[in-house]
């Protein structure tokens, strides 16, 4: 187990997150992935269908210590997954491609963690798919992105894009709000390794971590895009979605957290769209209580966000954004930002107000 540096960790936060994680990990079928589906993305520079797989693994190495405040992927891990099991999952994926030329691999952890995905499995994966697809995206924590560990990726036969969940370029937020156990410096180091190895980098940012006002969250995301744009082939902005058994879920259930508004996500995309790199967002749980949503349902806005992310043409989104009356939204996030504590303001307000009489 890695030794996590104290300055990366807020113990109070880590322990709270840890306590919420289920103690027993379920034993589900280790021969099939958690899930396989198709979705549109543009990692070859144009919108196209890609196949997404979530391999069932023993999980993220960080789970041995804690977890991220918003991450519930530990719900999908299995306590014993062998190399053979993983290879069968690779076969399952291979049979599910149905013509997709791009594959995206998620693992509830790090694809490049040799304990989670043994190197033998990694090699088997690329052998199996490299004839069928033109490009692969994998995910990893920064600590596994070393020249030694990833030297093989340059020889897989297909270009590989590595996705790193930076979440925020602000170490304070990563430490005190997300509990990632990482730093921006570690990200920069990993990014330079990726560049040297002639691989590609997708950077994930989290929009609206807990304990941060929506206004600050928007600014943080914009600022983070600015800091990583030159290093990244693209930046994926992920607005918070509420996952089971997480700290964020506990907060949300108590009215102490609200996912960001679609307007905020739109602002981040519009402000970042000229950053020099591709900035995109395919929100999970958009327009639902557990995901990014406005106070009033707005399907059109969500559609525009996804469409413009795919096309990298933000004109329609911008026109829609500029023609809307955002004054109430802006007043709300301004008022929210004067508070140090960041609950779901409307929810708590109405709870408190309901204790009083109505005329």
């Amino acid at each position, binding site marked *: 187990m890695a030794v996590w540096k104290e300055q990366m960790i807020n113990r109070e936060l880590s322990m709270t997150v840890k306590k919420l994680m289920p103690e027993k990990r379920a034993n589900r079928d280790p021969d099939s992935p958690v899930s396989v589906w198709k979705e549109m993305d543009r990692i070859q520079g144009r919108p196209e269908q890609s196949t997404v797989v979530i391999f069932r693994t023993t999980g993220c190495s960080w789970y041995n210590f804690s977890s991220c405040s918003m991450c519930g992927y530990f719900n999908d891990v299995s306590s014993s997954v062998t190399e053979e099991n993983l290879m069968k999952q690779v076969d399952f994926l291979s049979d599910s491609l149905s013509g997709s030329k791009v594959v995206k691999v998620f693992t509830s952890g790090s694809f490049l963690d040799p304990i989670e995905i043994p190197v033998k499995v990694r090699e088997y994966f690329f052998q199996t798919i490299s004839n069928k697809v033109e490009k692969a995206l994998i995910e990893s924590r920064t600590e596994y992105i070393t020249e030694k560990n990833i030297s093989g990726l340059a020889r897989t036969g297909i270009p590989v894009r590595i996705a790193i969940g930076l979440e925020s370029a602000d170490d304070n937020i990563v430490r005190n709000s997300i509990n990632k156990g990482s730093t921006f410096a570690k990200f920069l180091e990993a990014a330079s390794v990726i560049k040297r190895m002639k691989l590609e980098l997708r950077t994930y940012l989290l929009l609206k971590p807990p304990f941060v006002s929506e206004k600050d969250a928007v600014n943080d995301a914009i600022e983070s895009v600015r800091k990583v744009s030159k290093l990244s082939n693209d930046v994926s902005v992920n607005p918070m979605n509420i996952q089971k058994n997480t700290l964020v879920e506990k907060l949300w259930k108590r009215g102490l957290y609200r996912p960001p508004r679609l307007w905020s996500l739109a602002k981040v995309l519009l402000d970042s769209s000229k950053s020099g790199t591709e900035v995109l967002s395919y929100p999970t749980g958009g327009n639902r209580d557990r995901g990014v949503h406005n106070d009033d349902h707005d399907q059109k806005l969500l559609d525009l966000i996804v469409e413009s992310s795919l096309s990298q043409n933000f004109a329609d989104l911008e026109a829609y954004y500029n023609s809307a009356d955002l004054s109430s939204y802006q007043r709300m996030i301004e008022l929210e930002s004067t508070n140090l*504590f960041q609950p779901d303001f409307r929810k708590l307000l109405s709870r408190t107000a309901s204790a009083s009489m109505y005329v």
Partner: protein
Amino acid sequence: MVLEDHFIFGFARSGVYNKSYSYPSVLDSTDRSVIGRENSGITVMGNSFGKPFSYPDFMNRNTKGLLSGDIEIIPNGSELIQRPARFLKVIEEELWKTGFSRLIYVQGISDPYILPALIYSGVSFIDDSFARMESEGRIKYTIFGRKKVDYDPLEENLEFLRSVAEQCADAIKSGTLRDIVEKFQVSSKAIELLRIMDFKYFNEFEKVFPSRTDRIRANSIESLMRPDLVRYRDQLVRDFVPPSGKIALLIPCSARKPYSESRSHMKLLTHIGEFRKFLHEIIVTSPVGLVPRELEEGYPARYYDIPVIGHWYEDEKAMMAGLISSYFGKNSYPGTIAFVPEDLEFIEPSLPDGTEFIRGEISSSGDLEILREKIGSMVASLKEKGMLIPGTRMKAITSIASFQFGPWIVPKMENLKRVVNYDFDLLTENGKVMLVYNPSNGKLTLNRNAAQWFVAEGKRIVEIDDFKPTANIYAMGVLNATSDIRQEDEVVIVHRGEIRGVGIAKMPYEAMINLKKGIAVKVRN
């Protein structure tokens, strides 16, 4: 010096912070000079609080507030107020235990219907951000509660909220804050806060609650638990020394105060007048409980109003019955008679054994005749046994003194002579005035000559720096104060054992010790 207190009522304080922010008040959350957000973090009224991450209560049971200078921010008011007991636990730790050393600013509550209770708990600042958010939803504040409107009520709401704060500030000055909190019952949260403060934190509030206020308007059941009334009942049992050799006579109260000036009591007294010197009249009432006749001119007996309908709530009955039991458990009388109407019949089981219990109405001359006969025969038989001692006014004042200062003063009183001067009773020793009784407020005032008694007992002493007190002693000049001092109490002013004067406390003792500004003692001579 940035904290300038003007008036204190319990834990509530009014004054001016940093020469520009009056408290209690509602901060304008849109004014960047009041609440500023910069890259370096948040500044509030000129104090910098850095860039803290504010965690919810369940994550964070130890650190509650953010302290900078004299200001402490409690950020998660919106969460805490969902459970008022938790909110008050935080206030207990951060404010009540910190001896008036800081001002509390609670974020996350802008509810005008909760504000008076917050101020009563000692909160100095809230902000208007939640009221502004609520106004976005077109909810308007009215005196009876919230109301949905079809226009932007923002300005009206802010005005409403500010005026609640201003009126609470005035009520701190006039000593009526408690009444406001009791009567402003629009939000159940406010009532919860008040009841928890009364039931769970009586000791904390008793220490800071003034020993007298302007008037007690006991319009709601919450009045029963006013700290000054609970204190009165405790003090009555603990300190009051009744005159000896008298028959206890329990009678109902009257609306008019003092009771003896009411028509009903005058009528009663004309019937039993000849026996009065052998009777210790005790009035049964709510919310005060029991009032021995000697104390009817004082606080709180003379200063309360209650809606009387000939029916008592169970809580009131339990209080009266409990108090009667404790009182007669402590004090024994050669005989006891109760003359009460039907609605007070419930006291019978609480009376001492052998009590002559008469159910009767003062309005009925027949009932009064029965009472007269019973008293007559009890007086005759006890007189025969030599168990009765006629009362005197001096003895009555001695009982008052025992209540006001404690039973330790009773032996000192035995040497005093009573001299009547206009409406006052001057109590003298070797020709020197020691104490003065004022029947118009039922209070004994201290003369400098009696100060030595208090110094010897270690009671009611304010220790000051080396100066000659004039009209007022400011908190700055107070070095120490004994913990028995309550606001409005008679105190002795001392410097290194040397008596420098007497006066009236104008702050709770902890405030005198810890504050720098504000009048601590009004000096008499």
